[in-house]
C-alpha cells in the first residue's frame, strides 16, 4: 500500500481550464516517475479521452432504480404518485400511474410505499465508468447518460471506485465539474489539497469566491492557479482581490498562450512534456508537492 496524495482540481466557473491543468499536472507527475491516477469526475461532460484522443474501455455500469408498474397488480391507489418527491409519477383516478422518466431520481419511495408490490425492482443503466492509459498515466472517468438526473450519484460512484484503487497510486488527481454544489462537495471532501483554476474576468472572480467559500466551509486547504492570466481584456487584479479576501494564495499564473489554446482547440493535446524551467505545469506540480510537505 502506498500513501496516496489526493489533489482536487476545480474552479467554480466552467471553461476556465480545469481539465487542461488536471491533465498536464497528471502528466508531469507521471514523468517524475510517480504512479498517477487521473479521475475525470465531471460525469455530465467528461472530456479527458477527447483532450488526449485516446480510446477508453468500459469497466463498470452505473445503475439507477426506475419503477416498472405491473398492470396486473396495480390497484390504482395512487400512493406511489403521492409519495413521488420528483412528481415523476403522474396519476389520474382509476388509471395506472404513468412515469415521466426524465424526472425520476431513482429514490425508490414508490417501490417501498406500494401496498400490493406492483412495482418491480428494476435498475436502468444511468451511465458507465471507463478506464484508459496514456504514457504511463492511468485515467478513470465517469459518464452519466442523457436523460438521467442523478449527476451527484454518478459522481459519487466514480469517486468511490477511484478510492478503492487508491493504494496502487502515489498521486490521485480529481478533475471536477464546474459549480459549487453537492457533486463538487463529494469530490473535494476526499482531497488533501484543492487547486482552484480560474480566469481573470469578473465571472471567474465571482465563481471563485463561491468556490472558496465552499472549501472554507469543508476546511480544505485551497490554492489558486490563474489561467489565461494575460488574456486580452482580462483583469488579474479581480482574482488577487478574491485571493486576499479569502487568504488563499495564487500559486501560479498560466499565460494566455496561443499555443496552449490552439492545441486545446484542435485537440492536439501535447502527449509529450516540454523540458526545462519554463514549463509552467512542471512548476505547479512541484509547488503542490512542496505545499503538501
Amino acid at each position, binding site marked *: 500500500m502506498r500513501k496516496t496524495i489526493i489533489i482536487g482540481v476545480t474552479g467554480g466557473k466552467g*471553461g476556465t481550464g480545469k481539465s487542461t491543468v488536471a491533465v498536464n499536472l497528471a502528466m508531469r507527475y507521471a514523468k517524475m516517475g510517480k504512479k498517477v491516477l487521473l479521475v475525470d469526475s465531471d460525469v455530465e461532460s467528461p472530456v479527458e479521452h477527447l483532450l488526449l484522443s485516446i480510446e477508453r474501455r468500459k469497466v463498470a455500469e452505473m445503475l439507477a432504480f426506475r419503477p416498472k408498474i405491473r398492470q396486473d397488480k396495480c390497484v390504482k391507489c395512487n400512493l406511489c404518485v403521492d409519495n413521488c418527491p420528483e412528481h415523476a409519477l403522474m396519476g389520474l383516478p382509476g388509471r395506472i400511474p404513468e412515469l415521466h422518466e*426524465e424526472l425520476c431520481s431513482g429514490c425508490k419511495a414508490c417501490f*417501498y410505499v406500494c401496498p400490493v408490490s406492483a412495482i418491480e425492482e428494476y435498475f436502468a443503466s444511468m451511465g458507465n465508468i471507463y478506464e484508459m492509459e496514456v504514457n504511463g498515466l492511468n485515467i478513470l472517468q465517469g459518464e452519466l447518460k442523457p436523460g438521467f438526473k442523478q449527476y451527484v450519484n454518478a459522481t459519487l460512484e466514480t469517486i468511490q471506485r477511484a478510492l478503492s484503487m487508491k493504494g496502487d497510486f502515489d498521486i490521485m488527481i480529481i478533475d471536477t465539474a*464546474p*459549480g459549487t*454544489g453537492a457533486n463538487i*462537495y463529494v469530490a473535494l471532501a476526499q482531497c488533501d489539497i484543492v487547486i482552484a483554476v480560474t480566469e481573470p474576468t469578473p465571472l471567474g472572480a465571482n465563481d471563485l469566491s463561491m468556490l472558496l467559500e465552499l472549501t472554507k466551509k469543508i476546511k480544505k486547504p485551497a490554492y489558486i492557479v490563474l489561467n489565461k492570466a494575460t488574456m486580452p481584456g482580462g483583469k488579474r487584479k479581480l482574482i488577487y482581490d478574491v485571493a486576499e479576501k479569502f487568504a488563499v494564495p495564487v500559486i501560479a499564473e498560466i499565460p494566455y498562450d496561443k499555443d496552449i489554446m*490552439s492545441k486545446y482547440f484542435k485537440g492536439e493535446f501535447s502527449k509529450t512534456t516540454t523540458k526545462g524551467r519554463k514549463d509552467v505545469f512542471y512548476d505547479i506540480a512541484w509547488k503542490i508537492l512542496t505545499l503538501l510537505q
Partner: protein
Amino acid sequence: MVLQIVVASGKGGTGKTTISSSLIFLFNSNKFNVIGVDADVEAPDLIIAMGHGILRAKEALSESRIAVIDYEKCTYCMQCLEVCQFKAIKNRDGRPLIIRELCEGCGTCGIICPVRAINYEKIKTGDILEFETKYGIIISGRLELGRRNSGLLVDLLRERVKKYIKSDEKSVVIIDAAPGIGCPVISSLIGVDYTIIVIEPTRSSLNSANRLLELTRHFRIPVGIIINKYNINEEFIIEIEKWAENNALDILGYVPYDKSIPEAYSNMAPLIEYRPRSKASEALKEIYFHLLSVLRERNIIE
C-alpha cells in the same frame, strides 16, 4: 404571449452567459418585456454580464427536506441505510447517521422505518434574488454551497417569473442554464419553446453538445446552435455544421472571439452597449434577427 428560450451548452465556459445577456439586451431594445433567469445556481453570473442592477428582493427559500433520525425511537435496525439510493446514510458505530450534503429528502427512509423514527425537516435550498436592470428583470438563484437540490431551486426561480409577466405585452423569458445535462439542466428545459446550444469549435464542446441534444429530444424541444469563438479553430466548424445538418438543427450564427467581451464585463456594461460596432456585437445582432425568423418559421411566434 410568453416565449421561453433556454441557452445551454453541455460543456462549461462556451459563452452561454454572454449570449444570454446579449439576447436579453436585444429583445429589450425591440420592445419585448424581458425576464432573464440565471439557472446556473451554483455559479450565477448573468447579473454581472448585464452590468449589474438594483436588487429588488432577496428571499431565502427553504423548500428542501432533510431526514432527521429520532434516536429515542430508533431501534438501529439499519433498514434506512439499506434503502437509501443516495448513500446519504452511513453506519457510525452501529447507529445510522444522515450525511446532510447527500440527503435528497426523498422520504424513502421514512417509509421503510418500522418505528417511525425518521422525520423530515425543511432546510434552506438557497436564495432567490430579483434584480431590476435597464434591460429587464433578472431573477437569479444561489444554491446553498455543497448542496443537492439545484434542480428544485431552478423550478422555484422559474415559478417566480410569473410575477413579471404582463398579459398585455409580448414577454420573453431567457433562461441561462447551468453547464451539463443533469438535474438543474432538466429543470431548465421543462416546458420551454426553444433551446439554443452554444458550442465552441472543439471536440469536447461538440461531444457535450451532442449529449445535451439527446436530452432535449426527451422533451421534444426544437434546437438551434450558435458557434461561439468560431475564429479560434475555423477548421473544426465544418464538423459542427455537418452535425447540425444531420440532426436538423437551426444554425443561428457564428460569434468571433472578441476581447471586448471581458472588457465589457469589467466595465459593468452589456457587450452590445459597450462596443456596439465590435465584430461580436454585429454577429449577435444578426443572430437575434435570424432567431426571430426561425421562430416564425417554426410557428413558435407570430
